[in-house]
């Protein structure tokens, strides 16, 4: 219980500060837990990429990676994963930017309503939402039945199990991750700046393009990075709303484990997916402070 002793408040990071204080002990249980129940499982899984080798590997420890990159279908899925992530990021930006802007200029009450509208889906069941999209997009779903009922179309539109459906569903899930960083950035932009531009004779469009837009770029970059990285790992939504050709890497990995028990290839793919994610974060870190992106999630 010594750990609970209150340390005397110091002015700044004083030079005589001990390297470890008693409070640190309280962080140990969760850190040990995460090492044992999170990090070790990931390492155990990752190891299988170089230990679970096919019998004809002949000591080639990288054979699973070679199998991945030599398989035409695998590379296509990797490319598709990238493409879908890019499309979802662009769609999120197209909807998220005006949405966050609206939140910034609206009255506090409306800002609250818009915030709740974006947070409620954030915390509601992914599976329920994806199921809802099925109900909406099916041949006998809400959109097709309504359009046929109004006599606008004769045959149902091909919506369900298309890339469009995947993008619609993924954007719905990912939009909060775009809107929240954008709103944080935009609400910090001093409204006097655009007013000053207008007073100096700029048209509203020009004031927006030359003043507001450049100032909102950090939010755009943070939101896009967050959405893109999360989109790379999507599984449920593309599997339920897309066709087999919309398969993303996650679903591909799941199939290797569940149906083929090919742990070597599955682990190699998992490492490729982690590698791609880290590469994106690394490239992004040259332009923005990645720490800020996860600022909302920061624990220190």
């Amino acid at each position: 219980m010594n750990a609970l002793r209150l340390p005397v408040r110091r002015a700044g990071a004083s030079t005589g500060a001990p390297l470890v204080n008693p409070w640190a002990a309280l962080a140990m249980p969760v850190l040990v837990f995460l090492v044992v129940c999170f990090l070790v499982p990931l390492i155990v899984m990752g190891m299988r990429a170089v230990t679970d080798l096919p019998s004809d590997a002949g000591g080639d420890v990288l054979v699973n990676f070679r199998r991945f990159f030599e398989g035409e279908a695998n590379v296509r899925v990797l490319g598709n994963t990238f493409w879908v992530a890019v499309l979802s990021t662009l769609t999120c930006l197209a909807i998220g930017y005006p949405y966050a802007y609206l939140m910034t200029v609206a009255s506090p009450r409306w800002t609250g309503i818009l915030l709740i509208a974006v947070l409620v889906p954030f915390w509601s069941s992914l599976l329920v939402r994806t199921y809802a999209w099925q109900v909406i997009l099916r041949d006998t779903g809400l959109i097709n039945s309504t359009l046929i009922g109004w006599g606008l179309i004769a045959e149902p539109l091909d919506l369900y199990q298309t890339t469009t459906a995947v993008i619609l569903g993924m954007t719905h899930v990912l939009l909060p991750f775009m809107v929240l960083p954008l709103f944080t950035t935009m609400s910090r932009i001093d409204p006097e700046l655009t007013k000053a531009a207008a007073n100096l004779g700029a048209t509203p469009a020009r004031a927006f393009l030359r003043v507001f837009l450049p100032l909102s770029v950090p939010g755009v970059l943070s939101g896009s990075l967050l959405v893109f990285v999360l989109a790379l790992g999507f599984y449920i939504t593309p599997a339920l709303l897309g066709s087999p050709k919309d398969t993303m890497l996650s679903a591909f990995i799941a199939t290797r484990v569940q149906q083929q028990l090919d742990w070597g290839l599955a682990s190699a793919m998992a490492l490729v997916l982690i590698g791609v994610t880290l590469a994106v974060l690394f490239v992004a870190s040259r332009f923005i402070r990645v720490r800020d992106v996860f600022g909302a999630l920061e624990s220190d």
Partner: protein
Amino acid sequence: MGDTDSWRAPRRLALLAFGVVAVLYLVGPMLVVIPMSFTAANILSWPPEGFSTQWYEKMVEDPQWSRGFVNSLQVAVLTALLSSVLGTLGALGIVRGRFPGKALANALILSPLIVPVIIIAIGFFAFFSIARLTGSLPGLVLAHTALAVPFVIINVGTILRTMDRNLELAAASLGADPIRTFRRVTFPLILPGVLAGALFAFITSWDEVVVSIFMTTTRFRTLPVEMWEQVRQVVDPTVAAVATVVMAVTTTVLVFVFVVRRRVVVR
């Protein structure tokens, strides 16, 4: 001002129209499921016909759904308890503690939110099969806690970083020992964060599909896994009824979060 209003009017109208459409896009899809669950028709097509509670009856009578419901509830409650204990201690340690490798510790705590969930899922599966914990309640609780504990740390950490440390110093200077100070001053102050974190942990577990798919067996299944299996095979509206129940539980918990959060403001 009249001058600016004249160009603002059409722009405001466009923004307003956009806002309505966007809110509809965000909230609408989930509301579609509710009328669907009360359809009298046997197929999942829009619009729902008549009114019937048959799909709710079918859901209650089917032991797979009811067992899934009980299993999910158990896993979610235990996950919330374990996460809030580990997470609260962790937040105190991370925010107030000083130790080497703290940046690394921070990265470890946040990584369950960033690593693609399928990778976490097969990692758990590979590891817990060795420990023979797949298809068991403890195994799934441990796995869900790893996913949920960051939310508790974030919630408690936010309060810890903004609270007035002088309150603790005052208690100490008035003669309270450290334990008493913690029990009577610190803990009541961070309690809303602990509760909000626990509720978010509950929702995380209650809705979790991907890790659960790998960590459950036909003998021990949670509600989302049962839904995942049925959505792909059966096309009758029972899943709509289940989805409505799942949503009702999540919404109730979220309302609690708002109540808890509001308390913080009131104080």
